[in-house]
């Protein structure tokens, strides 16, 4: 591999890896509060992309209930991205109220929560298909504004192409990560969130409303999922209602790799899997999706608790 190729792969890997990171954090937040995996997270990722598309473009294809509709809302993209993520966050809140809370208050087994979130995921995917069909939607190439589509430079005589979209995605993810880190570590609500994650009874003895913190957590999780969906959508297009399924599974690989419930672990896991995929040789690119899981398998053999996870012994 030449230096230029290496650099190219590195940039690609870090960019997509940062999206994996913010997406996987959505799983991590819910897991650290409730100890469950939200299987509808991939569907929320998909929804986020469609929400933003509707606001920023709003032009639908030839299938589904909304076929031929052209909303032409022309909402500026940055604002659409934000509103799309907020809407996805609200879907997260709805999901908690409909699929998780009723089971929790009845003290049901957490396996039931898993099945129930899987059910919601199917409903979301089917609803999308019903409304806008299964076709591919792409954002216009100038969606991030009137900027060059790519930056080119040379390394030892060979060209390296950096798509501007990738740079923007990376920057957005870093801003979100910094913001999230700040909120969780330094704000009142973040400290309350940590308290609830550690011990719900103790947290409620301190006057923290566990119920409200759970809602906030689902909002943040949905926001991150929806944002990641839009970012991937702008880079590769929205590949249909099942768009989020592979990302949903990859996100699971990321959090297990990083260590369940660990926030730095999710970030590291995301970047590592992004890089691992980027360095798959072009001849084998059809097997790219398997890379995340092969990597996961190897790491778990050596470190069953994941890269940055607390070992189970320490946890007890």
């Amino acid at each position: 591999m030449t230096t230029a190729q290496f650099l190219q792969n590195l940039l690609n890997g870090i960019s997509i890896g940062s999206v994996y990171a913010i997406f996987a954090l959505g799983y991590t937040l819910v897991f650290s509060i409730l100890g469950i995996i939200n299987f509808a997270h991939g569907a929320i990722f998909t929804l986020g992309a469609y929400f933003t598309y509707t606001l920023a473009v709003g032009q639908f294809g030839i299938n589904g209930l909304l076929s031929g509709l052209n909303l032409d809302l022309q909402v500026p993209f940055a604002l659409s991205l934000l509103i799309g993520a907020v809407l996805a966050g609200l879907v997260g809140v709805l999901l908690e109220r409909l699929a998780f809370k009723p089971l929790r208050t009845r003290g049901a087994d957490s396996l039931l929560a898993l099945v129930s979130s899987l059910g919601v995921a199917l409903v979301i995917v089917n609803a999308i298909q019903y409304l806008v069909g299964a076709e591919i939607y792409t954002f216009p190439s100038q969606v991030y504004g009137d900027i060059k589509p790519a930056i080119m430079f040379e390394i030892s005589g060979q060209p390296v192409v950096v798509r501007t979209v990738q740079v923007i995605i990376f920057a957005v993810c870093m801003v979100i990560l910094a913001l999230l880190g700040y909120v969780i570590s330094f704000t009142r609500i973040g400290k309350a969130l940590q308290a609830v994650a550690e011990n719900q009874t103790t947290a409620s003895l301190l006057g923290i409303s566990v119920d409200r913190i759970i809602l906030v957590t689902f909002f943040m999780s949905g926001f991150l999922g929806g944002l990641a969906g839009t970012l991937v959508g702008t880079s590769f297009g929205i590949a249909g209602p099942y768009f989020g399924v592979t990302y949903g599974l990859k996100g699971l690989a990321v959090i297990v790799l990083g260590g369940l419930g660990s926030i730095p672990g999710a970030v590291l896991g995301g970047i590592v899997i992004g890089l691992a995929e980027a360095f798959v040789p072009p001849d084998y690119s059809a097997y790219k999706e398997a890379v995340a899981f092969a990597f996961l398998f190897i790491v778990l053999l050596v470190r069953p608790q994941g890269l940055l996870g607390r070992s189970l012994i320490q946890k007890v």
Partner: protein
Amino acid sequence: MALLELKNLSINYGAIQAVRCLDLEVNTGEVVTLIGANGAGKSTTLRAVSRLLKVREGSIHFDGREITRQAPDAVVRMGIAQSPEGRQVLARQSVLDNLELGAYVRKDRAGIKSDIAKMFQLFPRLEERKQQSAGTLSGGEQQMLAIARAMMSRPKLLMLDEPSLGLAPLIVLEIFSIIRNLNAEGTTILLVEQNAKLAMQHSHRTYVLEAGQITFSGLSHELLLDERVLQAYLGG
């Protein structure tokens, strides 16, 4: 006036009845002790007041309002704080964060700051370890932190579940003098203790709980001389 009033309270864990038809009052300005053998239902009673347990029968009134079905965080906002049994500190968070979370329901930044300084005066060991995560404190230090944290909400009613547990005798005396000072400053206190004699010496009234029911109650200095209480709880 009764600040806390439990009327005909019954609490179950599944089929097990832990507290039966309990009547108890804590008046504003009092220190009230609740004593009883292991498993008598003392912690259960405090948990019910903090609304961590469902009340099966009876009612709880606080500060003139019924709180029988309130949420746990709501009663903290109304002015009830509890230092629960056995080091329930947030092990992963720092000592300072634990204290700040103790003041979660308060908004007065300046007051919170000066109260933290006050807690460090009361418990200098906590100040030396304020950046340390609470899980790395010794058992006794964690107990101090749990008490200090409960005081941080500036409660009207402070409930302490075995505050002397695991503390060295000198620190125990210190804790009781802190309890007396807090009370002198106007905090009403409901105290659960194994250390019955000391607790009774530092309280106005005492309730004796046996198998989920109140068997004796009265002024502490009178019960301290009662044959039956003497026999059962004060080592003859």
